[in-house]
């Protein structure tokens, strides 16, 4: 017989009442799992700009928010959407061709409990932190990744105007890129950029807990996140540099997700019932480029011949199991309005290549091609295939493979391989940002671009999307293919693997997105 009394009843009722208000939270916390990811490396710094690399954004993206967020899954996109959604900015309006006003979401707190205000946003994009002569000493790439910023203007606690000195209709896109994470002004200034990178604070769904260099980084759920609550209790990024060990760690159950595999690993992993690979084309392009200061590769006809001699579909089939993608020129779907879906494919024409080699007056002397091992996936086998293709048209290329940690002298280089992440959802990256006037290929590597190319670069940087801009981009692509300051190869395919119980999809840029994209079965 169940006995009860008034005291017990009151205690029971109190517990029930308390439980009714907190049960969801308790259940939520209990259901959440710690996510463990086996990664190829960690960034040295989690300062958002200094951490830009192929390992940094996947962590930085969880700690920080941006004013506008790229929604990779918008409108049913499968991880490659480019739509920008309001995030820390509740709304925004373009004032003119150089400025945009942002109304900030109110009540958003940094992980240390201070409120995020317009002062923090203004500081984030100020010359003092990002692009000025002093900032370059501690945030070296801030200016390089920036548009032509002017100082931001704070209108009130929750309103800020971001401005550029020259017209730019890309301000919004920059804010949704890896340039955009908002940092807390006072905390950042009290530590300085370097120390901030070892103990970062943002407004994101996960809080920084620990970074042990070259070993692991741990984040924990930010319970007071302003957006959709984080679905993992913590995220640990464990460095496992050796790919075979990463795969073993996934099979043995130590990791929920592993990163940075190649298509060759897919069959093994997909053979396990509880595991699967999840791959995606990433917004990056493998290429090789020239040192124009070296007479050996100054002939446009020779460079063009080397491009025409490459059988890209064969390379994609042999090295990437058909999963890499060959772009139609410097032209990717992630460019949005500046992508031309009708552009013709890059040409493969052995006979024309032979004719151009003859025309170039190439004397058969060996041309060196530098690659830092397989730093870029499949770099060495790709080079070996191309050497044979070039041999078939009469060009003698010899490989120079150098070790990580060494950098050959510029003057020793004739050709080198390279990859460019297309980090802005616009055609400006990287045909303009790397090959344009004053940029590395012209300034450092000596490419004397046609005047028309440089004029068009200035034009597309300032024009609004539309027919005129699209036509300018297509003309730039024509000049690029004719001049061949670099030869594009393919868009690589990035492979992850995960437990089937982890509902998560990779996205098309070198980052990981867990907002609305992580659940455990």
């Amino acid at each position, binding site marked *: 017989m169940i006995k009860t009394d008034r005291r017990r009843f009151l205690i029971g009722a109190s517990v029930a009442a308390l439980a009714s208000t907190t049960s969801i939270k308790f259940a939520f916390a209990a259901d959440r799992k710690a996510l463990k990811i086996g990664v190829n490396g960690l960034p040295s710094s989690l300062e958002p700009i200094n951490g830009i690399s192929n390992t940094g954004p996947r962590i930085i993206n969880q700690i920080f928010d941006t004013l506008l967020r790229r929604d990779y899954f918008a409108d049913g996109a499968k991880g490659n959407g480019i739509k920008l959604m309001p995030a820390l900015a509740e709304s925004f309006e373009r004032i003119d061709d150089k400025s945009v006003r942002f109304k900030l979401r109110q009540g958003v707190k940094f992980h240390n409990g201070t409120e995020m205000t317009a002062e923090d946003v203004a500081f984030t994009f100020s010359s003092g932190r990002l692009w000025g002569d002093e900032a370059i000493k501690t945030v*070296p*790439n801030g*200016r390089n990744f920036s548009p032509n910023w002017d100082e931001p203007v704070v209108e009130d606690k929750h309103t800020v105007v971001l401005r550029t000195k020259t017209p730019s209709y890309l301000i919004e896109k920059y804010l949704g890129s890896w340039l955009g994470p908002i940092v807390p002004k006072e905390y950042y200034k009290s530590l300085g950029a370097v120390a901030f990178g070892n103990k970062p604070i943002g407004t994101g769904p996960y809080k920084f807990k620990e970074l042990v260099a070259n070993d692991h980084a741990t984040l924990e759920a930010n319970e007071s996140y302003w957006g959709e609550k984080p679905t993992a209790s913590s995220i640990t990024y464990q460095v496992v540099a050796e790919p075979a*060990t990463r795969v073993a760690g996934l099979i043995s*159950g130590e990791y929920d997700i592993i990163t940075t595999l190649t298509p060759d690993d897919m069959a093994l992993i997909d053979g396990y019932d509880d595991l699967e690979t999840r791959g995606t084309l990433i917004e990056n392009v493998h290429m090789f480029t020239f040192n124009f200061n070296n007479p050996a590769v100054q002939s446009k006809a020779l460079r063009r011949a080397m491009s025409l001699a490459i059988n890209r579909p064969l390379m994609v089939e042999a090295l990437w199991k058909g999963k890499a993608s060959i772009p139609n020129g410097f032209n990717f779907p992630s460019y949005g309005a500046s992508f031309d879906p009708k552009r013709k494919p890059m040409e493969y024409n052995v006979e024309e290549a032979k004719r151009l080699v003859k025309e170039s007056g190439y004397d058969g002397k060996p041309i060196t091609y530098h690659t830092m091992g397989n730093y870029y996936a499949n770099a060495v086998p790709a080079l070996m295939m191309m050497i044979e293709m070039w041999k078939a048209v009469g060009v003698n290329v010899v490989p120079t493979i150098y070790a990580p940690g060494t950098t050959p002298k510029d003057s020793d280089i004739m050709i080198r391989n390279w990859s460019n992440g297309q980090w802005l959802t616009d055609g400006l990256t990287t045909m303009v940002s790397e090959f344009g006037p004053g940029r590395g290929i012209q300034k450092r590597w000596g490419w004397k671009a046609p005047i028309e190319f440089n004029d068009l670069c200035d034009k597309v940087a300032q024009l609004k999307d539309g027919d005129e801009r699209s036509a300018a981009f297509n003309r730039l692509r024509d000049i690029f293919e004719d001049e061949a300051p670099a030869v594009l190869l393919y868009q690589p395919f990035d492979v992850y693997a995960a437990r089937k119980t982890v509902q998560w999809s990779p996205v098309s840029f070198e980052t990981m997105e867990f907002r609305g994209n992580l659940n455990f079965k």
Partner: protein
Amino acid sequence: MTGFILSKAVRAFAVLFSTALFVFVVLRFSGDPAERMLGEFATPEAQAAFRTLWGLDKSIPEQFLIYLQHAIQGDFGKSFADGRDVFDIITQSIPKTLTVSVSAFIIAILLGIPAGIVAAIRRDSAIDRLVMATAVLGHSIPMFLVGLIFIFIFAVWLRVLPSSGSSTWRHAILPIATFALYNAASISRFARATLIEVLEQPYIAAARGDGIPPSEIILRHALPNAAIPLVTMLGILATSLLGGTVLVETVFAWTGIGAQFVRAVGQGDLNVVQAMILVFTVFVVMINLTVEILYAFLNPKIRSQQ
């Protein structure tokens, strides 16, 4: 003995100084750290600011003098990569490496020497062949591959041990086993060969003729005479305790000094690289010094010469 130690110390100092100078100069010619650290996208202005910040814009002799001045006071500078004190990076990673390497070394000695003795005593028997076959296999399979085989057996197949990381004692088992197997194989082969050579000496035959029991011949006559070459060999192996675990650390994602060294080399983090090479050198010099002192204790002839 004091004079002996002093002369060795002077020699050790000369080795350290010349290593520091050599490494410093070679690293300055191995490429531009500004480019390695800041990446391809960095502007020339940013690279110039980086060089000024770290004093890389000064002449190499000037840089070396500044470096020496600080190093003498125990200040090896800061990491180019994350601004951490190089001394802290090294002191934090050495214990991790030594946990694996010293444990493995002790296990290797405990396995290798008895195995070598048994194989020598039972020469040409089935036990000898089994021990030597195992030793040859252990020594000839690359450590990297042994590590992956262990991972496959114990982490993937049996699922009893973790494959990577360094957060618990269980994570240390496979790296220790891998490093121990490799060293035990070397030790057992060498112990066997040395002991066989000693057992063929006339004084051993004489001892046998005198009717001394075999166990006493081994313990009192053979082993002490085999000790010096064995100590020399153990000394050579011991020099790899700090820097020799690079492969094991890479395979098992064990963040010791080897893994940190690989990272620093890859990034062009010169302050960390040169300090680590100096630490490796100090370690090797100390091991060599210890071995030479041990010789003096083990061999009265060497002691009397000094």
